[in-house]
């Protein structure tokens, strides 16, 4: 089996724009503090939309751009950690909204690294012959699980969805989704958690920052090595959009001189599992990366989990 590739991307963000000044009106914070610490200027917050609504909107756009139809899709995988409804899962609800009749439909929860986990799960299913055309989605409504009285966390998050249509790569063609490097640090997992009922996102910011800026660059490098792509040949790097200073820290250690660095966090905030497909979809939409060029995706965060792979830009 030749592997799989991403045919197209799509994304959705709610229309309600929330600025740093808007947040300063509800908690003790200010624009300068937020920009300095995390690099966020705006974020989008859902009003009526559910996780499934946003996921279906992003998936519908990706499907329309792919040249395939709902009848071609036999697998839907949704990465999310913020769906309040548990069953039917988000993937089934997306399938229902898009008229996908009988897909293998599952949700994957590895928080912020979820899209890369979901993408490789679909890649593996296609390689195994268990699926032919998949829609892979990262979708989060973090505003539902944000403590709006906690100024250290409520300034960080946004709501969004991003989606990819994944299909079998033609025989003889290089795989468009490289080998995944994935794992976790369970002994430290509680430093970034969403637990109990009513659950809210809680984190020990310094510990997460240290883990992300020191431990992840070697793993991201490993994903490039396993894909046979030299670091200087990377056309773009799309890491989880947690904090602009974490992105800078990873980039500094990684050494990728020719790559476009996704910094969608500035306008969208941290959207957990949605951040990587959202940022990638925008790069594709703006044609910032040539089709076929190698792009390193790397998700990390809640749990603590991580996953990354090199893909060929759709």
């Amino acid at each position: 089996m030749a592997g799989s590739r991403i045919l197209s991307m799509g994304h959705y963000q709610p229309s309600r724009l929330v600025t740093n000044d808007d947040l300063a009106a509800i908690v003790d914070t200010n624009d300068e503090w937020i920009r300095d610490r995390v690099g966020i200027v705006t974020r989008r917050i859902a009003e009526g939309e559910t996780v499934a609504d946003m996921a279906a909107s992003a998936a519908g756009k990706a499907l329309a751009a792919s040249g395939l139809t709902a009848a071609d899709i036999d697998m839907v995988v949704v990465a999310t950690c913020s769906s309040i409804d548990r069953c039917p899962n988000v993937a089934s609800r997306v399938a229902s909204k898009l008229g996908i009749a009988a897909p293998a439909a599952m949700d994957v929860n590895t928080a912020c690294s979820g899209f890369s986990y979901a993408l490789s799960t679909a890649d593996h299913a296609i390689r195994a012959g268990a699926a032919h055309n998949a829609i892979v989605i990262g979708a989060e409504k973090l505003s539902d699980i944000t403590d709006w009285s906690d100024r250290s966390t409520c300034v960080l998050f946004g709501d969004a969805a991003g989606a990819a249509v994944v299909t079998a790569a033609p025989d003889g063609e290089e795989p468009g989704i490289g080998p995944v490097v994935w794992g976790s640090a369970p002994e430290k997992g509680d430093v970034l958690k969403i637990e109990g009922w009513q659950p809210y996102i809680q984190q020990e910011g310094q510990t997460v920052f240290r883990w992300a800026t020191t431990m992840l660059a070697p793993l991201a490098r490993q994903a490039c090595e396993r894909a046979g792509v030299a670091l200087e040949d990377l056309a773009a790097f799309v890491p989880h959009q947690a904090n602009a200073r974490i992105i800078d820290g990873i980039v500094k250690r990684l050494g990728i001189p020719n790559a476009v660095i996704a910094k969608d966090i500035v306008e969208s905030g941290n959207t957990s599992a949605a951040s990587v497909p959202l940022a990638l979809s925008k790069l594709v939409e703006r044609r910032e990366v040539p089709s076929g060029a190698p792009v390193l995706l790397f998700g990390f965060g809640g749990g603590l989990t991580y996953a990354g792979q090199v893909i060929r830009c759709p």
Partner: protein
Amino acid sequence: MTRDEIIAGLAEILEEVAGVNPDDVAEEKSFTDELDVDSLSMVEVVVAAEEKFGVKIPDNEVQNLKTVGDAVSYIESNA
């Protein structure tokens, strides 16, 4: 390594990581209040200090390092 040598090494790190003027670095100075090193830059200082001085500074120790002198003493006794 003397305390002065450790201070000089920390001053280099603080300049690179947080743009602190090396002339401002002295034992009694507080990282946050006087040198304007925020909590994330403090993590970067700690990581760079571990590499420079060959010392382990665990996460739970970072909050005890309020002043330059605290960091010098920790490095002096753990390097």
